[in-house]
């Protein structure tokens, strides 16, 4: 009989060790796939090979632990939270742990990062396993030294103890540990024994940030590098016809001018000169197609909603029948504009394309995909292309796309120089990959005061909701339920924007339920709770939200926000949502100042499982909510003849500190695995605010941004 090898989780293939030449133990590990058989951690600490390993742990002979994490930070705090998971199981004092960015490696390698609020969820098991394995190796080494059983030894704060009262520091056994076999099936801590997870830990880059040290792509420079400012078509749908660079060449300091595709780059030794040179370019643009305006999009999307041409994403029961056998049909349409990401650090990227290799450095969330795209564009072997990531001045989805890295590569190839492309704010806002404009139409069939059918239609620009989104609440709660989607193909580039689709879908649905409660004359909280009862015990595997957990955050939010007991002049709005594996309920407190709504406070209840780092988690929650409030209130982005109307912060409004609510966060205590926080508090914020505005002014808002559209709405009579 053939021996069948089971694909069981073997630590040995994920973790490898070496004894460092300068003293200390080095552990190289891979998170989501086995190490290559030949992979070995170096004995020289300056030669960390992130091609073979995701990260390294160094335990020095003085017991100090250094975690070399190659993943830079986008702003969600994972660079702090992920090492916390390792340190917890390693059982060391956090004060003795240093987190270092992997040294810049000029050899060929590509790093991996998780996105979509998934880093902590996916890293939870493997990172703790890694820490626990390292701890076990040190224990085994100490036990051998003492001649006792490893099972008799315990650890605490970087020391190993045995039953005889002997004590050894981790640093004292690193040499022996490095020579041992990597143990398998190590035991993880009981969550009640955690000493680091659940503590407030400061951002590991905080010292550099407050001192203004170089960290970001924008700060990156190399000897001989030129800065490139790129003139791109001013409108989606326009192409370059001809250009005149006579004046640009006269700008003192301009080094060269490179045309590539429909774009022209001006290269100089400093950013300002490159930008000045770009402004001196004269270009003629042509278009043989109709140029799109926001009014056209509005018309097209409404046509789609009115039409019959949909893809059905989920269908339960018989929606047709439900809408025939009714007392009442309630139908509402919700509308959102395009949104730019507006990362504070404008897009930028460094490229050095030579005959030998292609080196790329900059802020990017998708290094692998970008390396592949550059290799294809330049017709180079993928192994010649390296992508080095810097810290990112915000992402929000924009840095999933490597368009700016491709530009840098193309310019460097033509110019035969190391080049850094730098976007101005105007470039950043007008060459975006925007959140698409979307319209939702939601209909409910009502029979004898009950919701018998729910029909959600989505009309979006370029693409539609995906994955499990059609199975989010209220899927499973209403017998006859259908989600239909359609899209209009536009020349305007669109993509992921913090909490894709749910960032607006949540507003539509949570506004709709609020209005349904008013029409049915039932309590708006009870309506949601009643619907959730029907989901309990579901066997539908597509439904990943937990009705119990959603019910719980709703009830706690009611209690913590003083729902129904607000002070005179304070109007409250409710919203609850599940996305990115996290359950959230929010209550917005709105007051009127000069008849305009001002959001004073948002009470937020979050069930994200175990909270790894409450300090960092609250920062994400506060930021997500204020981001959600800000874009719902002010975010207005439109096009005229293919060109964005707003290109900088003088006319495009982002929320500022004097418009910001105080966010009060409550976590649900939990012992289940953690889920992400970068996105899930944003989606419910818009509906909480609009439901509060309804309470304050009697105006029901169907369109974002609120401030712009409130001017157009009239309060209903009576």
């Amino acid at each position, binding site marked *: 009989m053939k021996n069948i090898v089971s694909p069981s989780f073997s630590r040995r293939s994920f973790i490898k060790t070496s004894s460092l030449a300068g003293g200390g133990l080095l552990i190289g590990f891979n998170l989501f796939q086995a190490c290559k058989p030949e992979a070995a951690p170096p004995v020289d600490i300056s030669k960390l090979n992130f091609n073979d390993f995701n990260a390294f742990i160094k335990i020095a002979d003085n017991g100090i632990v250094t975690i070399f994490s190659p993943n830079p930070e986008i702003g969600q705090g994972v660079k702090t939270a992920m090492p916390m998971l390792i340190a917890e199981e390693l059982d060391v004092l956090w004060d003795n742990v240093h987190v270092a960015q992997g040294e810049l490696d000029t050899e060929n390698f590509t790093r991996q990062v998780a996105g979509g609020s998934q880093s902590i969820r996916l890293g939870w098991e493997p990172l703790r396993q890694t820490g626990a394995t390292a701890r076990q190796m040190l224990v085994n080494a100490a036990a051998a030294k003492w001649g006792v059983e490893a099972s008799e030894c315990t650890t605490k704060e970087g020391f190993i103890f045995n039953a005889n009262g002997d004590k050894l520091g981790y640093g004292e056994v690193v040499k022996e540990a490095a020579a041992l076999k990597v143990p398998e099936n190590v035991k993880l801590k009981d969550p009640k024994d955690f000493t680091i997870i659940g503590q407030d830990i*400061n951002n590991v880059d905080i010292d550099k940030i407050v001192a203004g040290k170089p960290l970001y792509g924008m700060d990156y420079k190399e000897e001989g590098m030129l800065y490139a400012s790129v003139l791109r078509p001013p409108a989606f749908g326009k192409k370059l016809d001809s250009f005149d660079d006579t004046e640009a060449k006269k700008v*003192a300091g301009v080094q060269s001018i490179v045309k590539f595709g429909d774009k022209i780059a001006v290269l100089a030794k400093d950013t300002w000169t490159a930008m000045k040179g770009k402004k001196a370019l004269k270009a003629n643009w042509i278009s043989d197609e109709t140029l799109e305006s926001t009014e056209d999009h509005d018309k097209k999307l409404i046509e789609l909603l009115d039409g019959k041409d949909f893809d059905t994403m989920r269908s339960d029961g018989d929606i047709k029948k439900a809408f025939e056998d009714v007392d009442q049909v309630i139908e509402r349409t919700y509308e959102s504009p395009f949104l730019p990401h507006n990362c*504070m650090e404008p897009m930028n990227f460094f490229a050095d394309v030579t005959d030998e290799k292609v080196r790329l450095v900059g802020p990017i969330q998708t290094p692998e995909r970008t390396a592949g795209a550059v290799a294809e564009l330049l017709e180079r072997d993928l192994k010649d292309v390296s992508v080095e990531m810097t810290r990112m001045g915000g992402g929000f989805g924009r840095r999933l796309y490597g368009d700016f890295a491709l530009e840098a590569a193309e310019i460097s190839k033509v110019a035969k120089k190391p080049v850094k492309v730098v976007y101005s704010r105007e470039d950043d806002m007008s060459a975006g990959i925007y959140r698409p404009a979307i319209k939702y139409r939601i209909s409910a069939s009502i029979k004898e005061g009950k919701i018998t059918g729910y029909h959600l239609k989505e009309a979006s620009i370029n693409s539609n909701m995906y994955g499990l989104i059609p199975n989010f609440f209220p899927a499973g709660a209403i017998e006859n339920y259908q989600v239909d989607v359609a899209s209009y193909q536009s020349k305007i580039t669109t993509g992921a924007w913090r909490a894709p689709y749910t960032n607006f879908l949540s507003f539509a649905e949570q506004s709709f339920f609020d209005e349904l409660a008013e029409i049915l004359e039932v309590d708006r909280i009870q309506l949601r709770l009643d619907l959730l009862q029907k989901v309990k015990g579901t066997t539908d595997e597509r439904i990943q939200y937990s009705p119990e957990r959603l019910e719980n955050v709703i009830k706690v939010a009611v209690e913590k926000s003083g729902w129904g007991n607000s002070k005179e002049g304070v109007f409250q709005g409710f919203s609850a949502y599940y996305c990115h594996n996290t359950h959230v309920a929010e209550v917005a407190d709105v007051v009127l100042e000069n008849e305009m709504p001002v959001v004073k406070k948002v009470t937020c209840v979050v069930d994200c499982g175990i909270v790894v780092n409450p300090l960092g988690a609250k*920062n994400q929650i506060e930021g997500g909510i204020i981001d959600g409030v800000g874009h719902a209130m002010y975010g207005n982005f439109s096009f005229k003849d293919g060109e964005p109307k707003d290109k900088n*912060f003088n006319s495009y409004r982002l929320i500022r500190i004097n418009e910001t609510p105080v966010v009060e966060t409550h976590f649900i205590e939990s012992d289940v695995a953690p889920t992400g926080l970068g996105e899930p508090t944003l989606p419910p914020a818009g509906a909480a605010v609009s439901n509060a505005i309804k309470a304050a002014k009697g105006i029901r808002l169907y369109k974002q941004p609120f401030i712009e559209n409130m001017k157009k709405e009239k309060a209903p009579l009576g």
Partner: protein
Amino acid sequence: MPIYNLKINGQSHSVEADQETPLLWVLRDHLNMVGTKFGCGIGQCGACTIHLDGSATRSCLLQVSMVENMEITTIEGLSEDASHPVQQAWKEVDVPQCGYCQAGQMMSAAAFLEENNNPSRLEIRDAMSGNICRCAAYNRIEKAVELAASKINQTS
């Protein structure tokens, strides 16, 4: 191109640059002081805030030819070792998310607290409203300015 003598963080620097070059780019590209950030280029976001003779100023709008012989302070010179009460408060409150705007935020806060070391929340919100934080770490910025004020009052 003309040469300008600048006094930055107590040190003299001479820079050869086009007279229109904003101080922001002189700092970043000519002098390798990259703590001062580029955000919008039109004085709307505050990422490039520096002190000019002690006042918070947007360096993206300041031509190099206008600032000779003036005292320029950047985030690198706010303190030698990140010990300024504002920097300390920013660390304690753990303000940053992406962190990109924070040098500008801290420079605005430091200049504001020089004028008013016992501000109300409303005054803080008003004073800091010229600085955008896209990650919206605003609740913490507010707290950190308040904490910095109390630190300043303790030592003075």
